[in-house]
């Protein structure tokens, strides 16, 4: 019996029973990749799952985020004029980003939002897939572009808003990377607006490799911007560029103020969100500093 147990363990380990199997790297050119089967997540948007998620967000995740970080949320007024569904598009540099977005959305939006998550990471192991679908309302997105799913389109059609990170992955140094056009295509196809969101300080609070925010309640900002809609004659590429600029403007606004950022945006002088072209360590160094908050209220009368 012990040899059978040994064999079963060897097979379980060798064939990654708890994960998605991967061919050896040198075998990839010779490998017939099976058509990816999308991990089913519809159950995570059922009524019981939504109720469970709301309880987790309100009773667990929300209080943790507020306890472990110094959270500042700006731009909530955009929701006054919005009637869903929309696509929230944000820069992405930390696992805490999704928690920040979900816990800062107004309750009625929070209840009907789904998050696009990398299939090869969040849906790599069944336990991770179940957990992220339940807590974060994730659905899988194939980053390789193989076997594009119709789930996002279907969700928008069913009235669900989506949270997407067009960079495709977390920034390695805290600065934003080039936005891919997936979210723009999707918004154009579904004819829904895109709400840009700037997330500031999340890299400093919980960079790659950390599973919990740094001690000391680091400051993080969530800044929602005005919705961006595709123009009548605007192609998707230009639309995508506008979305990217909208996020960059919000980041600029967070560093300066709304009017200055708007003026720079008007003349195309918004600082690039991809950061300065300096040595890698200097980019990381700059990102690891928490954003400076104007703690004292500016004086109305001097």
């Amino acid at each position, binding site marked *: 019996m012990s*040899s*059978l147990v040994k*064999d*079963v363990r*060897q*097979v379980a380990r*060798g*064939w990654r029973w708890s994960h998605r*199997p*991967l*061919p*050896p*790297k*040198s*075998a990839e*050119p*010779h*490998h*017939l990749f099976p058509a990816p089967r999308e991990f089913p997540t519809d159950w995570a948007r059922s009524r019981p799952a939504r109720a469970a998620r709301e309880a987790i967000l309100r009773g667990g995740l929300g209080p943790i985020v507020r306890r472990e970080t110094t959270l500042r949320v700006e731009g909530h007024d955009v929701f006054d004029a919005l009637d869903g569904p929309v696509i929230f598009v944000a820069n992405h540099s930390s696992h805490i980003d999704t928690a920040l977005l979900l816990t800062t959305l107004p309750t009625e939006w929070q209840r009907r939002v789904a998050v696009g998550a990398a299939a090869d990471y969040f849906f790599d192991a069944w336990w991770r897939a179940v957990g992220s679908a339940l807590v974060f309302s994730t659905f899988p997105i194939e980053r390789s572009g193989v076997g594009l799913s119709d789930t996002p389109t279907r969700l928008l059609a069913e009235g669900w808003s989506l949270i997407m990170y067009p960079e495709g992955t977390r920034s390695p140094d805290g600065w934003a990377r080039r936005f891919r056009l997936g979210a723009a295509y999707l918004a154009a196809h579904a004819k829904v607006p895109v709400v840009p969101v700037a997330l500031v300080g999340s890299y400093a609070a919980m960079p790659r490799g950390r599973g919990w925010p740094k001690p000391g309640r680091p400051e993080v900002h969530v800044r929602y911007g005005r919705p961006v809609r595709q123009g009548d004659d605007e192609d998707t590429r230009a639309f995508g560029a506008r979305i990217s600029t909208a996020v960059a403007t919000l980041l600029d606004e967070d560093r300066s103020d709304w009017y200055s950022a708007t003026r720079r945006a008007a003349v195309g002088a918004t600082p690039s969100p991809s950061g300065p072209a300096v040595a890698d360590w200097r980019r990381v160094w700059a990102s690891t500093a928490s954003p400076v908050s104007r703690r004292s209220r500016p004086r109305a009368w001097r």
Partner: protein
Amino acid sequence: MSRPGFVLDVDERTPPLLMHSGESFRLQEFPLGSRIIYPPESLPGVPDVDEEIENALLHPIDSEPLPDLLRPGMRLTIAFDDLSLPLPPMRKPDIRQRIIEHVLEHAARAGVDDVQLIAANALHRRMTADELKAIVGERVFRSFYPDNLVNFDAEDRANLTHLGKTDKDEDVEISKRAAESDLLVYVNVNLVAMDGGWKSTAIGLASYNSLRHHHNSHTMTHSRSFMDPKMSQLHSSAWRMGRVLNEHVKVFQIETSLNNDAFPSQYGFLTKREWEWSLRDQATFLGAKRGIDLMPAKARRKLFQSMQAPYAVTGISAGAVEPVHDQTLQRVHRQQLVEVDGQSDVLVLGLPYLCPYNVNSVMNPILAACLGLGYFFNMYVGHPIVRKGGAVILNHPVPWEFSTLHHPSYVDFFEEVLSVSTDPKVIEQKFEQQYATDPWYVHLYRTSYAYHGVHPFYMWYWCAHALDHVGDVIWVGGDRRAVARMGMRSASTFADALEMASDTVGRSPSITYLHSPPHALAHVK
């Protein structure tokens, strides 16, 4: 679309790899960076085998169509490969049966009465009636057995003909019936690149007097490799003999090539690349391994020996021996050739339960050595997979077990000869003649089902090139006494074998595992 063979570099994602080890198999983990040679996937078979046979017979290469060679009153001999091919035995109907039936249909239409079928078993054991029937089929068996469907008897002096000598003074002595026929049709099954060509007739129908010229330690050491006929002294000698034979008898060669479907579908995991194993394959492996491990030895052997391969035929060529064989080799290469970049310090081989000489029998230590160091080691063209002075690690239990029915002279060879010397040259000079002419072995060969007395020597000569080339041979899981008798070393595990090999190849050797069967022929540059 069949995918080509390739060389895998073992990385963190690589699952443990299947390793044959006699009448069992296991999963083996390899050090990172090891190279694994995978054979090409099975090529599709020809869509209509009967049509392909007819086409080959009616449109042969460098020969008149078969019907034009047949006439009433002629002597027609049909020789065919014995049960040493293919391995595992082919699921019925055997391709030889189908071809022989087509040939006989033509012969019947042409009014040929004098037909004899001869199994070209040379010094191999006689086949039983059932074994013959399995190859030629019931219709042919019923029509010709026992008088005109026979095993070749290389010790029947009255039925041998000395056709002359080659320009290298080699005797050409073959079956009298074949040599004196108006037409000799040879029906071949080409499993590996070593088979076929003049090896079929000039070796399969030859006597010891002829075979000794190429089945010797010198020729075997200088056949680099057996799988590359142009670089093989064994084949050069057979080709010279074949040309002498060709001056005396018209040979119509029919060669067939098979794909890589070596195992039945229920054992599909044996032919799949491991990372592509489905859950079902993994479960089948676990179940099969557990079942085999628990089985009594007799039942286990029966299970393995009853395995029949669902081989498909990838092509059939007929006509003059040499151009036909050139075509066959191209097809075999298409199915088995894998480009390999450079040699390695260590060659790892997993030896299965079967070699050409233990069909329905026991794989004794000499046959295991021959399978590993003779056949698998020689599965290359260009350069050996392992460098000169490198190490070979073989996986096989090497049981001290012999079939006294099939391999009587092996028992004495193992006890008497190998205990004196394991050097092929020495044992050839001191013992070969004695075993080759021993009247008891001759008697058993002719009347029982025994391999010829000299056969174990030939098996040892097959190893001569490997023994000359490598610096260390280590058997994983081998019976220590049996392995020591052969002058080699035994290790309990693969890790121990690598540790032992470090004396020869250092502590971080390059490792190549030839993932076979199904067969892969490494083209090492």
